[in-house]
């Protein structure tokens, strides 16, 4: 009996403590939010087709980009990989029956749903126009939107993130199977562990910040209002103390997926395992020391700016370490270009650009020129979409057969991976140029000279939209008509590939004893490379 056939009632899902079922419930929920955020993005790109503010007047435009940001950041990017793929695979990859705290896991899903519903309710009532950062005084004095409801939604949602992080930390510490030492952990587990650290250290700070924001909005007690002694910069410090590390909540798990993909689809042990593992921890730690690079022009002290600028350069080092090690893994590997690998290679290209333009923005002098322009928008989309979404999609394709027991169409998979890559670049690369030429973000109108590049961008967005819609169709299709997946369709050594697809409720018949290193390809593991190649050829 698989985890899917273990009960068909609604109750057997809504009250489940099985990490795999909770992961699927998260998958459905985050997909809905992703779709919704995507629709807002479509509205933005439609409006920006023409220089005038015609489709949306400025007030509505403010709401549209705010809601795009709020939904995508808090309800898709942050939970996506940890709560779906991490939830499903972290216990299996370390040889455990479940996460250490299954009830807390279910609770985190409910908290997510409550926070999400509240936010959706607020959006239907009239939405918010503060920008996803809820900067004061937009959010306290001037906003006419439903700041309280959305803020409360984000506040509540934060606790689901905290509980997921807490659960991962406990699980990695106590639930590893015999022989699964720390340095035999798959790098996806290391990445999620580092993410979990950021989740429990950062999220509470944004929670208290939103609480203070609510108090200021309701009581006007002078926390952030300088006219009565408060400090708006304090808000920004507190907000970015979480929200810069939040970028790593989004990108670290994705890097974990990429480590899996690069090694496994090169059929080669990953190069520099320890370096990749520790670079995740280094990113988590140093990520907490750079938040001020969001505030170079907002009035913080220049000396603080210099320190933040320097530390921002430093935090790029562990990311670069990963990039070098992945590249070195590819070298002389037996690389196959299945859909997940296409996403992984796409990730490397896009994250490289996203990361390097981050250095432009981290340089205090250049930042003054580029801040609040489309250069910023392009940069963080390269990191969040080019990084997180590519990793998420790569992971979904990679593990789809294990999660559902069905094989999707490789043909359509590859088509859509390429569409996403091309569409993404067409959408966001022109925005670097637009930003460099001075087009500010968050305006519904722009000078006519900038229209050509904006048309490129909007056209790219429709290609990207198509590329993202296809998986919904062929993956859903595979659920019903897809071929039944074998236990190990990619011929890989990881623990998750040694149990049936889909896994039974308890994951393992008996607790596995691990005697091998991570990514150990070899015949002693029953993995015949030639057979794997034959399979690759057969699916082309």
């Amino acid at each position: 009996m698989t985890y899917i056939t273990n009960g068909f009632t609604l109750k057997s899902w809504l009250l489940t403590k099985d990490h795999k079922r909770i992961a699927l419930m998260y998958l459905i929920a985050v997909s809905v939010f992703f779709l919704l955020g995507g629709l807002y993005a479509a509205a933005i790109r439609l409006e920006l087709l023409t220089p005038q503010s015609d489709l949306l007047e400025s007030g509505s435009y403010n709401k549209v980009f705010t809601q795009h940001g709020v939904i995508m950041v808090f309800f898709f990017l942050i939970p996506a990989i940890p709560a779906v793929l991490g939830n499903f695979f972290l216990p299996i990859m370390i040889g455990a029956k479940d996460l250490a705290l299954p009830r807390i896991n279910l609770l985190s899903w409910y908290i997510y749903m409550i926070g999400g519903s509240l936010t959706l309710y607020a959006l239907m009532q009239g939405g918010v126009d503060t920008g996803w950062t809820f900067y004061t005084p937009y959010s306290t004095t001037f906003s006419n939107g439903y700041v309280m409801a959305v803020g409360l939604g984000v506040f509540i949602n934060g606790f689901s993130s905290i509980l997921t992080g807490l659960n991962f930390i406990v699980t990695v510490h106590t639930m590893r199977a015999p022989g699964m030492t720390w340095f035999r952990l798959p790098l996806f587990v290391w990445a999620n562990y580092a993410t979990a650290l950021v989740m429990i250290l950062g999220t509470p700070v944004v929670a208290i910040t939103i609480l203070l924001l609510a108090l200021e909005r309701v009581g006007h007690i002078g926390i952030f209002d300088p006219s009565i002694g408060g400090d708006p910069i304090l808000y920004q410090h507190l907000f970015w103390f979480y929200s810069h590390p939040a970028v790593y909540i989004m990108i670290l798990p994705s890097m974990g997926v990429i480590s899996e993909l690069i090694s496994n689809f090169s059929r080669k042990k990953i190069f520099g395992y320890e370096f990749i593992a520790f670079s995740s921890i280094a990113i988590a730690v140093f990520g907490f020391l750079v938040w001020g690079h969001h505030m170079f022009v907002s009035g913080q002290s220049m000396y603080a700016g210099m320190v933040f600028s320097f530390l921002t350069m430093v935090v790029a080092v562990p990311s670069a370490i990963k990039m070098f090690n992945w590249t070195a893994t590819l070298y002389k590997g037996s690389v196959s270009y299945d859909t997940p690998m296409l996403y992984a290679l796409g990730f490397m290209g896009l994250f490289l650009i996203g990361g390097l333009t981050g250095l432009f923005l981290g340089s205090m002098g250049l930042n003054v020129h580029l801040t609040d322009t489309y250069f910023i928008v392009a940069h963080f989309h390269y990191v969040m979409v080019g990084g997180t979404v590519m990793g998420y999609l790569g992971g979904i394709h990679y593990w789809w057969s294990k999660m559902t027991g069905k094989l999707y169409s490789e043909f359509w998979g590859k088509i859509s991976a390429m569409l996403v890559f091309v569409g993404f670049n067409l959408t966001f690369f022109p925005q670097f140029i637009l930003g460099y030429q001075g087009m500010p973000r968050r305006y519904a109108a722009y000078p006519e000279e900038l229209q050509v590049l904006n048309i490129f961008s909007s056209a790219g967005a429709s290609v990207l939209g198509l590329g993202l819609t296809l998986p919904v169709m062929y993956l859903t299709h595979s659920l019903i008509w897809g071929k039944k997946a074998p236990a190990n369709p990619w011929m890989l050594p990881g623990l998750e590939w040694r149990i049936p697809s889909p896994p039974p409720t308890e994951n393992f018949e008996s607790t596995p004893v691990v005697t091998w290193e991570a990514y150990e390809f070899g015949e002693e593991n029953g993995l015949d490379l030639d057979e794997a190649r034959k399979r690759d050829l057969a699916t082309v």
Partner: protein
Amino acid sequence: MSTHDHYHPPGLQHQFEDMKQQEESVSIGMWAFLVQEIMFFGGLFTAYLVFRSRYPMAFAAGSNHLDAFWGGLNTLVLIVSSLTMALTVYYAQKGNRNMQVILIIATMFFGAVFLGVKAIEYSDKFNHGLVPVAGLNHKSKAEEPAAKEEGKTAAGEKHEPNPRGEFQWTGENYEASVKIITEAHEKKYLTKYEEVGYYSNGELDQNKVRDKVRIFYWIYFVMTGLHALHMIVGLGLMTWLLIMAWRGTYSADYYSPVEISGLYWHFVDIVWIFLFPLLYLLGRHFMHGGGH
């Protein structure tokens, strides 16, 4: 699920191999939760640090209206409750049901005393117009000054009418803050934020001073309020422990719920150990003659 071939002691959840693994997990989970709590309160401590370093005199003036006796009593109460909590864990390990029950009741009693004292203090602030949110203070009209002069206000301060229940910093409170601000001004102790934060055109501005004292009071209310909320959650935990202990659940083999509830209780106490000096004691000497 009946395929397990090994022995499952009662109380062991299915995902664990043995009790040791379960206890470790639960304990690490609570520690991680407390780390999260530290960061949660950390945002507020940061706000305290920022504003206190900007407006030390307003903070001293606001702090002096808090009653160090009640604060000190509560500190003592919480420390004793920590002792009874620690002893509860000890007797849970021994499997001594009666002592557990007595000590949990004692812990809850001290927790309730703490909240009671907090309620007395809050109502005092309510009566004196010191709640920072407009409308949440006692509303008094100009016609009935005598009603507020009755003996229940300990300091016997004069009260301005406050028909809309706004935050007030008037009468003796204001006079006292004028005294220390002027003295600090003469001795050139004022921070640059204070120089613009208290004065308009070279004159002390009562409204400006009030706004800065109000910053102290929102910090006081948010920090002690969140702390009190944690105490209430703690009392909930204790109620549950009491029921379980009454049923004789805990023994040398199984006491981790008691242990982690204890961790939580101690954490909440420790937060108060920081709050008490920061809110009640710092800056007292400015008004009590020791300030040289």
